[in-house]
């Protein structure tokens, strides 16, 4: 737990070693497969939110959209397994951050690139990742991690291009 140091700030606990964190993540992913028949994910919840919001705001246009139509055919997808899972990710990470004294409200990266550029880059990065995840049919966790664990070819193609592009773009643009 957080034991305050002499200057009154809580002690920041170190991160788990990568091997331990990797084994833990693998066991959580295996448990997810055993319980549900599919892996973990994240971007799918954002799609469900867009589909659910669309169904509320513009039901006709949403049902007519060829991408969203199958997702809203059985009703509002806002309460899907994936949306609950992502809410769980928030709760789990919040608990972990508090237990380890690592919760701190901040605009991370504002010191290195400036406040406005950081906001613009976070928004632009999210936009590219959101669009890209829909093209690939998943993101780093849903397609990369979970797909690779099932030895899917698509997952390894995704991961190779993800890391190659990340390496190049991070040399051209300073995100943080």
């Amino acid at each position, binding site marked *: 737990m957080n034991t305050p140091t002499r200057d009154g700030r809580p002690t*920041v*606990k*170190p991160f*788990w070693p990568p*091997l331990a*964190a*990797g084994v*833990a993540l693998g*066991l*959580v*992913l*295996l*448990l997810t497969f*055993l319980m549900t*028949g599919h892996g973990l994910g*994240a*971007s799918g919840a954002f*799609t469900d939110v*867009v589909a659910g919001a*669309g169904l509320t705001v513009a039901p006709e246009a949403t049902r007519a959209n*060829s*991408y969203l139509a199958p997702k809203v055919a059985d009703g509002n997808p806002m309460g899907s*397994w*994936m949306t*609950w*899972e992502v809410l*769980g*990710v928030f709760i*789990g990470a919040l608990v*972990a*951050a508090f237990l*380890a004294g*690592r*919760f701190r409200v901040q*605009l*991370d990266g504002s010191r290195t690139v400036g406040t406005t550029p950081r906001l613009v880059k976070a*928004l632009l990065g*999210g*936009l*590219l*990742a*959101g*669009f*890209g*995840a*829909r093209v*690939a049919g*998943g*993101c*780093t966790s849903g*397609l990369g991690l979970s*797909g690779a664990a*099932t*030895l899917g*070819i*698509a997952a390894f193609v*995704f991961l190779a*291009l993800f890391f190659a592009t990340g390496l190049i*773009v*991070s040399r051209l643009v300073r995100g943080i």
Partner: protein
Amino acid sequence: MFPLHLNGMLSGLLCGILFGFVLENAGFGSPLKLSAQFRLNDWAVFKVMFTAIVVTAFGLWALRLVGLMPPDSVAVPQALVMASAVGGALVGAGFAIGGYCPGTSVAGLASGRVDALVFMVGLLIGTFAFVGFYGPAIRGMMAMGSIVDGDTFTDAYGVSEPLVLALLAVALVAVFFFGAWFERRSAGPVTAQQAVAGAGASE
């Protein structure tokens, strides 16, 4: 017999809470630590992901071997090569520019990062844009290079599954070996103190 096909609220919350707990403890709520992988001075992202992939892949294989899980009972992504490549490149670019991917942005927000919330707004806009542009052109691009014979190396090319698993295990050892080499020759991994202080803070 597994899988149990529990796809309700409690199952989602449980899997998500465990996932988020591990993500934050690995340091993946910090965009400073995440993007340090692309600068090659912190290999935690590669190490954690590869370890998890190998643990789960071996686990699924072992469960099938002892008969607790029938073959073809878990979801395998369709082998849409062009879609995976283009999507992977876009998510990688978004990661480098924004500092997160979709899942880690949720962990970032949970550890107090406002920029992660902005990234999540971007995710919604990007998803909305895709849905708006979705049509014959995007569908055609996504279908390019699809492998029709199967979705895994075993189904599509007849590579035996133990061989694929063995290659993954070798790749895992290589990631830890090369990672340590790069980390020794650079600033090294981002510590929890540095991550909490935020990018650019002096120690």
